[in-house]
């Protein structure tokens, strides 16, 4: 951990020299470093014990800089860090989606990529173990709805290659639920969706038949639903 921190600080020194040349880009980069430092602190100490001083020290900057790049104090910092982590997760899922050749591939790849990313996420794992309410209150009851909507909007372009928009949105929501349902409990029951083969089996067993079932009543009137990419 200390090696990682030292590397980060060394990077920051490089970056500062850089920033003087590139000016405007600096703020965004410093912000990213502050958010990354926040996640590292949470992975080590949790939400309750992490202070702005910890974050500043970890990011190799002053408290004033932390305030400048993310105004609003600790709550705002944690929220911005969570948003940045979600964006990173979505980028990784997008890469998995891009690699897929069929709908089944797409669903299984998205599922296993998300499950693996969440399982190996140190801050998330720490919180689920020691301060579960900080995570679970964000996905419990109505709090899950915005996440479902974000995920559906995000996945739509890929799913709509195979499915009509309405069904694509339903499947995106379904997939998001599966990620939340199987990745956010630590009791280890249920299939290991981080394993690509298990994710593929799971998709074949539960998801593909569901897609079949939603198209069967409309088969004669709605030929747009296919399981192969539409040209």
């Amino acid at each position, binding site marked *: 951990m200390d090696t990682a921190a030292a590397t980060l600080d060394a990077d920051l020194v490089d970056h500062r020299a850089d920033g003087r040349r590139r000016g405007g880009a600096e703020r965004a980069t410093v912000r990213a470093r502050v958010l990354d430092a926040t996640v590292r602190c949470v992975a080590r100490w949790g939400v309750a014990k992490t202070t702005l001083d910890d974050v500043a020290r970890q990011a190799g900057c002053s408290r004033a800089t932390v305030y400048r790049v993310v105004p609003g104090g600790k709550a705002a910092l944690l929220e911005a860090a969570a948003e940045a982590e979600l964006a990173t997760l979505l980028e990784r899922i997008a890469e998995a989606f891009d690699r897929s050749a069929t709908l089944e591939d797409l669903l299984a790849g998205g599922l296993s990529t998300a499950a693996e990313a969440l399982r190996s996420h140190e801050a998330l794992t720490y919180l689920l173990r020691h301060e579960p*309410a900080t995570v679970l209150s964000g996905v419990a009851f109505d709090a899950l709805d915005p996440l479902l909507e974000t995920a559906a909007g995000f996945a739509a372009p890929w799913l709509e290659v195979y499915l009509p928009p309405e069904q694509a949105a339903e499947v995106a*929501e379904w997939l998001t639920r599966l990620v939340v*349902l*199987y990745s956010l409990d630590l009791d280890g029951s249920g*299939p290991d969706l981080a394993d690509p083969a298990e994710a593929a089996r799971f998709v074949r067993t539960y998801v593909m038949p569901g897609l079949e079932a939603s198209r069967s009543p409309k088969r004669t009137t709605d030929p747009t639903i296919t399981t192969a990419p539409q040209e």
Partner: protein
Amino acid sequence: MADPADTRTRLLTAALHCFEVEGLRATSLEDVARAAGMSRATVYRHFPGGREQLVADTITWEVGRFLARLGHALVGERDLFGQLSVGLWWGHQAIGEHRLLQRILATEPEEFIVGFADADALLQGEVHGHLRALLETTELRSGVDRDEAADYLTRMFLSHLASHGRWDLSDRAEVERLVRTQFLAGVL
């Protein structure tokens, strides 16, 4: 001497009342003792873990009552499809109409989630046990594992009950379409 079960029910009822008025965080054991017309010592005897236990036990008690009403609503639904559909439809409505729950979720979500852990375990256990028993007498698709299917259906059922997402669960036809496709198509 009063029946301990009665005393406990009175205390839990009083706790619910206090949560209505004060919220979870601001309710003290003294408040509950006063509302129930009992001594502080009695409250502590029933909830030796203090306020945290009071909150957790009250939520669990309320969830137990929810499950009893759910069981009643399911009488007459013989198969998996009927049980899941009616369960979702009825449960969604009951949760939406629970004003105290809705208010606490809006005002003290973290406090609620901390107190909800035991109730969550009860919910998962009861729903899983119920579905697992139903699956025992249901013919499944070849290759489907009964335990995994029960686990899958339990998670899906509770997830939709808590967050309906884009589904209108007050519409029976919508609920049935959801259950037929996302819940059961791979299982039956």
